[in-house]
């Protein structure tokens, strides 16, 4: 479909934030992802924030059932989904109630006016109809009878009312495409593919989408439409990628590059399950997926697979991580390479299953009995999850050690344009199985990496026993002697520490020295980057150090911290990296801590920066 040639005014802008909000049954996540995909293909830089309830279907029309999807798209670089929104699509009063505070003054509000009856207002505990009182005075409000118009467009298909109503999100999506001058074709292709076996539903959704688009054109409802030119991204081929997808294809790539089978032992848990779903599709890459009976079997089966020579991983979230604790200790003791992905969520206990948090850092660092250090890595963006999967696999296989990857709900479900590497430009991961019985001992180490040999069952002459009991150095036999134990504890720690020599130095961005350094890790990368950028444009002398390797830390972190007068550590927890940095480097760093199940807003960071700089 061509870009409209109507009489409405068309304005070129740099950037917009749009949020789709409705019931969890209204298809808001699909609507949001479709809009995202379309603008990404067009060439805008994007950042997304899907925000949905833990309940699969909370009672329709109620506040707990509200599901939202926010997208920031731009002709420039985008690091965050945006603090506030330019366009809000609200499918019912509950969605309006929950999201209105984030809509900018004079922002566009598209509401489904068919769902503002007395009964709808009551479900949302709204006493007065916001479409009739003055609640919405400061916004540009577009009440649209989404239900009636969708039904009118589909009535000839012979569908029941419920099925027709399910298409109204595509009507709204069609309107948004018109508003931003975007082609409906990518979504048409998606519908064709998705409903290839249900031609009637395919037709219905396409009609609804087109009807929404044509409605704007015919009625000139908006009087204005916007154009956001493509962003100047690094040249290359791009795709839209979420963090969980990126981890999945990252591990497939790692296994291929190492010439090993990929084994995933996993137990379903939000927000990690998508990695299991994704990897289960790639059987033609030799991927073995095992949906275990529980979290413990998930990791211990991975240990069994690693023992037999596979690249073995397990995926989970905080509560599952707690259950895997003892097994991580076993992998550390038997020095077998596994990767444990913890897609963090709000806690403790069941906590906030669908909301993001960074509060498992200290669990990853120390959550085992006795001395059992393991490498800990954290991806900084959804696309970086791919590279972290490769790095975690490389470290695990080279050093014969369990490695923890700390992603989170925000990275897992959020998406960004990802420049696709070619398979050839990704370096191989060398792996050597021991085969020579001459002088073989299961705990005789490589002098440089301190890794023990990987001697897998089926290799003649290498029969040996391993286990969780303390080992004698070199022979690996059971040994309870005091000095041997201390030696082995120190060797296991030294092995992890030696990885420091094998990772890049920390490189702060912004000012290389100055008044303030922000230190971040994980998914706060985007908001901290954006805040530092804005503040530097105002002339502040500040730097930003983002850590992907959390254990061991890069060698020069202590030195970098000293180059700034003050250090601020923003985290979505009570100050866990802060605690580590203070303890390790005796630096008087301060924290900015948010524990609301949501990412930082740029404004929250900037406010703290200004407070610390006294400006």
């Amino acid at each position: 479909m061509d870009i409209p040639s109507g009489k409405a005014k068309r304005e070129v802008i740099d950037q917009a934030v749009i949020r789709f909000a409705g019931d969890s049954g209204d298809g808001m996540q699909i609507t949001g992802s479709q809009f995202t995909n379309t603008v990404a293909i067009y060439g805008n830089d994007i950042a997304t924030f899907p925000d949905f309830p833990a309940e699969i279907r909370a009672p329709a029309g109620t506040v707990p059932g509200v599901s939202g999807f926010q997208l920031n798209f731009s002709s420039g670089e985008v690091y965050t989904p945006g603090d506030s929104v330019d366009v809000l699509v609200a499918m019912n009063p509950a969605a309006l109630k929950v999201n209105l505070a984030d809509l900018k003054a004079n922002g566009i509000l598209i509401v489904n006016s068919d769902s503002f009856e007395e009964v709808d207002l009551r479900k949302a505990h709204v006493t007065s109809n916001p479409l009739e009182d003055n609640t919405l005075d400061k916004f540009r409000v577009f009440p649209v009878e989404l239900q009636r118009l969708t039904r009118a467009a589909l009535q000839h298909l012979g569908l029941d009312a419920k099925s027709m109503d399910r298409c109204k999100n595509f009507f709204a999506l069609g309107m948004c495409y018109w508003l931003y001058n975007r082609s409906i074709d990518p979504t048409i292709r998606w519908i064709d593919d998705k409903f290839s076996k249900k031609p009637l539903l395919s037709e219905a959704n396409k009609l609804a989408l087109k009807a929404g688009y044509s409605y704007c054109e015919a009625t000139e409802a908006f009087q204005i439409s916007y154009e956001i030119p493509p962003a100047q991204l690094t040249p290359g081929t791009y795709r839209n990628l979420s963090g969980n997808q990126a981890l999945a294809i990252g591990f497939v790539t790692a296994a291929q590059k190492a010439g090993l089978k990929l084994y995933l032992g996993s137990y379903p848990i939000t927000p990690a399950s998508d990695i299991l779903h994704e990897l289960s599709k790639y059987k033609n890459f030799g991927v073995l997926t095992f949906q275990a009976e529980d979290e413990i079997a998930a990791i211990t089966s991975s240990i069994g697979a690693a023992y037999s020579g596979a690249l073995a991983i397990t995926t989970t979230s905080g509560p599952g991580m707690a259950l895997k604790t003892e097994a991580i200790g076993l992998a550390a003791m038997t020095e077998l390479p596994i990767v444990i992905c913890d897609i963090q969520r709000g806690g403790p206990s069941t906590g906030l299953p669908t909301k993001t948090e960074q509060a498992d850092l200290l669990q990853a660092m120390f959550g085992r009995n006795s001395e059992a250090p393991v490498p800990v890595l954290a991806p900084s963006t959804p696309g970086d999850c791919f590279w972290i999967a490769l790095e975690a696999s490389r470290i695990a296989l080279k050093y014969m050690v369990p490695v923890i990857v700390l992603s989170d709900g925000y990275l897992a479900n959020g998406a960004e344009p990802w420049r696709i590497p070619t398979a050839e430009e990704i370096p191989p991961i060398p792996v050597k199985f021991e085969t020579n019985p001459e002088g073989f001992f299961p705990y005789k180490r490589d002098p440089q990496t301190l890794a023990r040999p990987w001697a897998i069952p089926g290799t003649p002459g290498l029969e040996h026993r391993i286990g969780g009991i303390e080992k004698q150095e070199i022979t690996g036999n059971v040994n309870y002697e005091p000095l041997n134990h201390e030696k082995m504890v120190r060797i296991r720690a030294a092995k992890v520490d030696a990885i420091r020599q094998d990772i890049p130095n920390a490189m702060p961005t912004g000012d290389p020295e100055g008044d303030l350094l922000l230190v971040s890790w994980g998914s706060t990368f985007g908001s901290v980057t954006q805040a530092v950028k804005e503040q530097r444009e105002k002339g502040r002398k500040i730097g930003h150090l983002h850590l992907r390797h959390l254990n061991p830390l890069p060698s020069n972190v202590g030195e970098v911290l000293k180059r700034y007068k003050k250090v601020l550590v923003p985290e979505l927890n009570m100050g866990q990296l802060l605690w580590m940095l203070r303890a390790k480097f005796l630096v008087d760093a301060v924290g900015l801590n948010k524990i609301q199940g949501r990412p930082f807003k740029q404004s929250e960071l900037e406010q703290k920066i200004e407070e610390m700089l006294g400006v």
Partner: protein
Amino acid sequence: MTTAALPPLTRKDFQTDQEVRWCPGCGDYAILAAVQTVFPELGVRRENFVVISGIGCASRFPYYMNTFGFHTIHGRAPAVATGLKIAHPELEVWLVTGDGDALAIGGNHTIHMLRRNVGIKFLLFNNRIYGLTKGQYSPTSEFQKVTKSTPYGSPDRPFNPISLAIGAEATFVARSVDIFQAHLKDTLRAAAAHKGSAFVEILQNCNIFNDGAWTGITEKDARSERVIQLEHGKPLVFGKTHDKGIRRKPDGDIEVVPLGNGISESDLIVHDAHHPRPSYAFLLSHMEDRPGFPTPIGVLRAWDDLPRYEDVVNDQVAAITQQKGPGNLNKLLRGGDVWEVK
């Protein structure tokens, strides 16, 4: 995995240089001897054996077997072994566990391994006590048993491991006794011949914390009077002079009957270990709890028509690879909608 001609192996090939550290007189010694006798007979290269255990006295077993061995953590051996078998189905995996390891802390993994029919030989050493922690009651201890943790008697009712395994629809379920060496070896051979999960309960004495755990069936005359040795295709007969048998009642239940006086072996149940459904084996499995009935030993169930789990998983990988062609990394990386930035 090597496929060259198999060198002849002996019991000695499976012994390690590690000092065996079970208490003198422990039933585990007899089981170790039986396993080391049977392994060389199986036609499997030594490097292809993997012995996996959990935690407990029994679980020290791998250290004394000169094979690949993995002494894992409490209760988790079935899960470790399952991962190993999925990744390397050709390995010969034997799992050694105890009543606490397999039925308390690892109960979940035990039943799931069995229902999946992973090709693992599962040896459960049942001494009805916690030995390594020095004498607390276990999930197979008798009701009201006095132990260190139950000075006034245990309030727990025990699991019957055989019933539990059959309930989980294990495809091979057998029982033997540590001191019945010939029977034990035959039972291990039968387990070795089974492709799917093979569950073997081995009744074992703990002479330190639960001496006489099984004297009810091992003391003089008990073996013939209170034990029935099951053999596929043979009638259910027991007694010192083969004077008793087990007969099906019209209501489907079973009864013990004396032979003679018009009742002959042809009236008795003929043992059918190969029946596809587990209900008959289940009926036999808990007859020992009923007055006058004997304790069954031997193979209760050996139905090997179900594919092994690891084969199902790997066959699916092979079939999809055949259908789609081997994975192409560049195609994977470029999956979904892509666009060019110039």
